[in-house]
């Protein structure tokens, strides 16, 4: 696909974002038109989907994502998410989405108490979201996981709702790397347009620099979804 005609997908750079360039590259490699967005702006620059990338925004001081959640651009992201725009939070982005209450629950320090960088096996639990439709239900995939605060927690009722409504979309298999409740690696909101996950699909789009290409389906899902709606 020619990137200049693919749908415009934005990637927000916060102070301390690290995997923003990787997310932009993944969008390009998968046929979208990557658009860098700046945390201090109050426009989404006509993008049709937004990715909040990985990194240590504001140094992950206080709590991961807690400070970024108040960036000017987030006002727009929150509004757009409520209007149904596809929004993906990867790792630090997932943490920001939770802090912004676009997704329920929170991410806390790994139970192993150290940063974990590994190739993590996952099961795709739901393909009914804008970001996972190109997977097959129950598919086993491997993605790079690299985080220090990746333990997903939520109260019992929230967990019951997530499980009951099919909002758990990725689950760790062959070992839980960080103590996440119910082995949860990624979730979506009720509508399925907002997705957050701890592993990094953008590091799995090129066999040269990642362990697999399993991350491509994330990007192609949203690109196909948007292309179909033109």
């Amino acid at each position, binding site marked *: 696909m020619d990137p200049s005609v693919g749908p415009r997908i934005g990637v927000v750079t916060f102070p301390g974002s690290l995997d923003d360039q990787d997310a932009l590259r993944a969008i390009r490699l998968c046929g979208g038109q990557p658009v860098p967005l700046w945390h201090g702006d109050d426009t989404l620059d006509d993008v049709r989907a937004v990715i909040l990338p990985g990194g240590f925004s504001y140094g992950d001081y206080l709590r991961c994502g807690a400070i970024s959640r108040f960036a000017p651009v987030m006002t727009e992201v929150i509004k757009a998410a409520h209007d149904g725009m596809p929004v993906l939070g990867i790792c630090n982005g997932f943490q920001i989405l939770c802090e912004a209450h676009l997704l329920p629950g*929170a991410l*806390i*320090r790994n*139970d192993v108490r150290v940063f974990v960088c590994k190739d993590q096996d996952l099961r795709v639990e739901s393909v009914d979201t804008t970001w996972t439709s190109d997977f097959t239900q129950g598919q086993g995939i491997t993605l790079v996981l690299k985080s220090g605060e990746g333990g997903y*927690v939520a109260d*019992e009722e929230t967990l019951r709702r997530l499980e009951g409504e099919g909002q758990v979309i990725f689950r760790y298999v062959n070992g839980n790397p960080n103590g996440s409740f119910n082995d949860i690696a990624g979730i979506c909101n009720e509508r399925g347009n907002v997705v957050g996950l701890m592993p990094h699909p953008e590091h799995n789009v090129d066999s040269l620099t990642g362990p697999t290409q399993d991350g491509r389906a994330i990007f192609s899902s949203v690109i196909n979804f948007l292309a179909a709606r033109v």
Partner: protein
Amino acid sequence: MVVDVMPKPEILDPQGKAVTGALARLGFAGISVRQGKRFELDVIGEITEDRLAEVHRAAETLLANTVIETFNVRVEEAPEASEEDDQAESAEQTELATQAG
């Protein structure tokens, strides 16, 4: 002023658990620990009820994530107080406690 932020009891606390285990291994028996955060706030100007309420809002908005944490705001003297001062200091504390979160 001081804002204490603690993980809610039902949320798992990997750091507290680790500290608990480490203490036991070091021979400090029968101690169980939960780990939270302590913020010492240097607030310019007089500490009025309004100012307290504002700090409370700040805590709720930013310092604590009320999904998983509780917090407690209170006025406290500088913590470097020496042993002698402590009684007085404690008595002076005004608290604006909260179950927020």
